[in-house]
């Protein structure tokens, strides 16, 4: 497993690239958007009743389902007073013609690690409140993201769906009885969140920035970067996820652009979630 670009290759790419760049210089996109506009977002939560939290997020026609399952387990030895969470991501073979079944390839590993980084480094989940017996028993959250339909930018869609599932999830409640863990039947609690992490994927062609690229754009970008922001616009995660040169000056511009876009996206997400948010 080595080279694994999603886009097409060949001379047609160079023609497409020129066309996309010329449009961008006029402030337009190949699909009619502004360079700094996201595609329409829809959020459906509670789509899988057996999950402890779930959401399908559509970003244009990119569609990602995240489900959360909770178990009780032992904490990491170096973090005895914190609950545990892991993020996994799969590029399902039904989502795109080049996605194959089998163990996660480097794209899927990168996706899961970037989603994990956005949630973990922003301290989004209050892990200290997910402890049952210090050093022994804690809540373990398994956050699994499935790409159902791929039309570009699975990073931002995955973060949105993971956050939507976390914000609206209701996990089983446990109690400690004589040093043993017992599930409280019929009782659930919200997942304690401290911030709403949002990622913004930005692409660069020559000197022009765009957000939320579709596959035809992804295949001609000079490079791209994903930046995760907390609710107070601190940067918590960065991943330059494609080859290519990123001039330092344009990176600074991207960080500022992403900040603004993340605020709009967060507002949009919270608006979509509305009353579904468990507080």
């Amino acid at each position, binding site marked *: 497993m*080595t*080279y694994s670009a999603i886009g097409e*290759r*060949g001379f047609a790419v160079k023609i497409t690239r020129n066309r996309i760049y010329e449009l961008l210089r006029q402030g337009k996109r190949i699909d009619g958007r502004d360079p700094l506009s996201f595609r329409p977002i829809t959020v459906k939560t509670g789509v899988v009743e057996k999950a402890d939290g779930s959401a399908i997020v559509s970003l244009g026609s990119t569609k990602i389902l995240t489900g959360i399952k909770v178990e009780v387990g032992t904490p990491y030895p170096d*973090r005895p007073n914190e609950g545990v969470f892991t993020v996994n991501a799969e590029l399902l073979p039904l989502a795109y013609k080049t996605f194959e079944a089998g163990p996660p390839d*480097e794209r899927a*590993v*990168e996706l*899961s*690690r970037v989603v994990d*980084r956005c949630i973990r*480094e*922003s301290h989004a989940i209050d892990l200290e409140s997910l402890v049952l017996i210090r050093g022994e028993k804690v809540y373990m959250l398994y956050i699994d993201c499935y790409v159902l339909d791929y039309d570009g930018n699975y990073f931002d869609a995955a973060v949105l769906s993971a956050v939507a599932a976390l914000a609206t999830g209701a996990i089983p409640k446990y109690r400690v009885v004589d040093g043993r863990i017992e599930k409280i039947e019929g009782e659930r609690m919200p997942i304690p969140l401290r911030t709403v992490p949002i990622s913004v994927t930005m692409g660069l062609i020559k000197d022009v920035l765009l957000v939320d690229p579709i596959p035809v754009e992804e295949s001609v970008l000079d*490079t791209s*970067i994903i930046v995760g922001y*907390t609710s107070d*616009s*601190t*940067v*918590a*995660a*960065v*991943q*330059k*996820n*494609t*080859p*290519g*040169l*990123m*001039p*330092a000056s344009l*990176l*600074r511009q991207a*960080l*500022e652009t992403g*900040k603004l876009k993340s605020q709009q996206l967060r507002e949009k997400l919270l608006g979509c979630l509305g009353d579904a948010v468990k507080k």
Partner: protein
Amino acid sequence: MKRVVKLIDENGRRVDGRRPDELRPIRMEAGVLEKSDGSAYIEVGGTRIYAAVFGPREVHPKHLELPDRAVINCRYHMASFSVDERKPLGMTRREIELSKVLREALESVVFVEEFPRMMIDVFVEVIQADGGTRTAGITAASLALADAGIPMADLVAATAVGKVDGIIVLDINEIEDKYGQADMPVAMAPRLGSIVLLQLNGMMTVEEISAGLEMAENAIKTIQQSQIDALRKRYRVEAGGEEL
């Protein structure tokens, strides 16, 4: 985040006595492995890494071949004994991700279109990890590519900046990575003024990132000079003692 040690003392010195903008001692050498087409060894503080390059050679497996450019294959791997707790054999998810970002950083400068239907293999083996292994690994890999005679737009060099006790520091070590607030590895093509690898784990403001990048850029120029010195040393010896 839990803190067990004070990371910056009252004199502004770090756990290993460095100033915030000070690199650890770096030593590197080109051409250290006989059978590869190019190789390098690097030490950055306690971090020790070998890198080797094979190719351009035939693509294996064949279906990865590209008609208009070379394929770069990269494996970043840590020895089981390189870390405090033995690392299980095989590739972890972290190693898979780092292999990808390392490859992409190198791909940014290699003239891949010079070698259609060929493959360039880059292997990075961390034999001891003391923080900054991906950045030291990329510095070594770039040196090994140059040693193999692969044409590149620039020699990529890298370091990490971090935030510890609220202060932006250069070239963070293992303790600072573990107990600090942020770790931001940066690789650049300094001659081109461009970033080829960038990641961030942890919270920094946009302004702090800008300040960190500036600090990293200056250090990367210094590291690139060490790469150039290592290449001079290697090829001066082979040319029979003549100064290049």
